[in-house]
């Protein structure tokens, strides 16, 4: 029987739909794209210092020899790899009629991206 009427409000309606593998793939694809877009101007600034002479470029590169920048560099490589992997997934679905129906491809894309990141670390960069 009806026992009580609590106050009006959301009861967590359909939030589960946001946690599908496809949603995770789309979210990570966009976030990695934003990270790459933010990196690009900094990359151009670094290249621009070369126009003012080798010493200027060297001194700028000297600033990047610290742990934070190295970690960010690794993150950037991972972002690039994950953006490419998820981009290929979208192209495969839309242009190659690839009918992916489970989380395996999304997991595979992430695994590939982190494998690339690991290779980057192992290469001693």
């Amino acid at each position, binding site marked *: *029987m*009806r026992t009580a009427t609590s106050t009006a409000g959301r009861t967590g*309606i*359909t*939030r589960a739909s946001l946690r599908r593998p496809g949603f995770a793939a789309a979210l990570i694809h966009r976030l990695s794209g934003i990270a790459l877009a933010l990196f690009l101007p900094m990359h151009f600034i670094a290249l621009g210092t070369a126009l003012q002479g080798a010493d200027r470029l060297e001194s700028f590169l000297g600033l990047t020899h610290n742990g934070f920048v190295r970690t960010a560099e690794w993150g950037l490589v991972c972002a690039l790899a994950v953006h490419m992997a998820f981009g290929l997934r979208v192209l495969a679905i839309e242009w190659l*009629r690839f009918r992916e129906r489970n989380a395996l491809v999304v997991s595979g894309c992430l695994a590939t991206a982190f494998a690339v990141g690991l290779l980057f670390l192992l290469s001693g960069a």
Partner: protein
Amino acid sequence: MTAPVDHAAVGLSATEALRVRVQRGDGVADYVVPRRANQTVLDVVTEIQRDQDPTLAYRFACRVGMCGSCGMTVNGRPRWTCRTRVAAVAPDGVLTLEPLRNLPVVKDLAVDMEPFFEKWRRAHGYFEPGENPPDDFATVAPSSPARQEVDAGIECINCGVCYAACDLVTWNPDYLGPAALNRAWTLVNDVRDRDRDRLVAVAGDAGCHSCHSHMSCTEHCPKGLSPTFSIAGLKRETGKAALRRFWRRG
């Protein structure tokens, strides 16, 4: 084809009473319903409405997964309730029922499907036979690629589950939605159809190119259809049509 249904029976350790929380206009109402063998979510709602609270509003018709009118949000997931067994979705004995997302609520669990069907019309989701009827029956080989594409999407029952699951509809209320675009794709592949404007109708800002391939529609469709891949087909066809137009102009 129908998505696999979990025919879970009531477990031995299951509670005898089912706690049901229903989103109503004035808040969340709590009910207690006895558990029964092979009980579906629609059975539970019907029992509440008939035995406990006749003011509870909901919608159903066929009870056998054909009409697509009993869609609700069950424990946070859009589902057809007539073919959803309680034992499969509420193992801990608690059922939270809400109206479908992305549609205006008429009362309690009944939503207004008008925006959903209005988008079918906007996507030209109806067969267009052309000015003159053909002289003879069209010959359509079941194995032809176009017919196979139609077969993959034709079993839609208009339940609105994909529409409620779609994040893009939430973000852009003008977005045509998975069901309307899926229907448009089956008609694009219908060799008898004479509508020349359908691709234009689905290629707009709120059309197929807005799909982010989250695949919630494909995940939740009770009929096991894949609107994501139908929308991908529309993206290909609209892309090719744009290239052809560009080629002719150039």
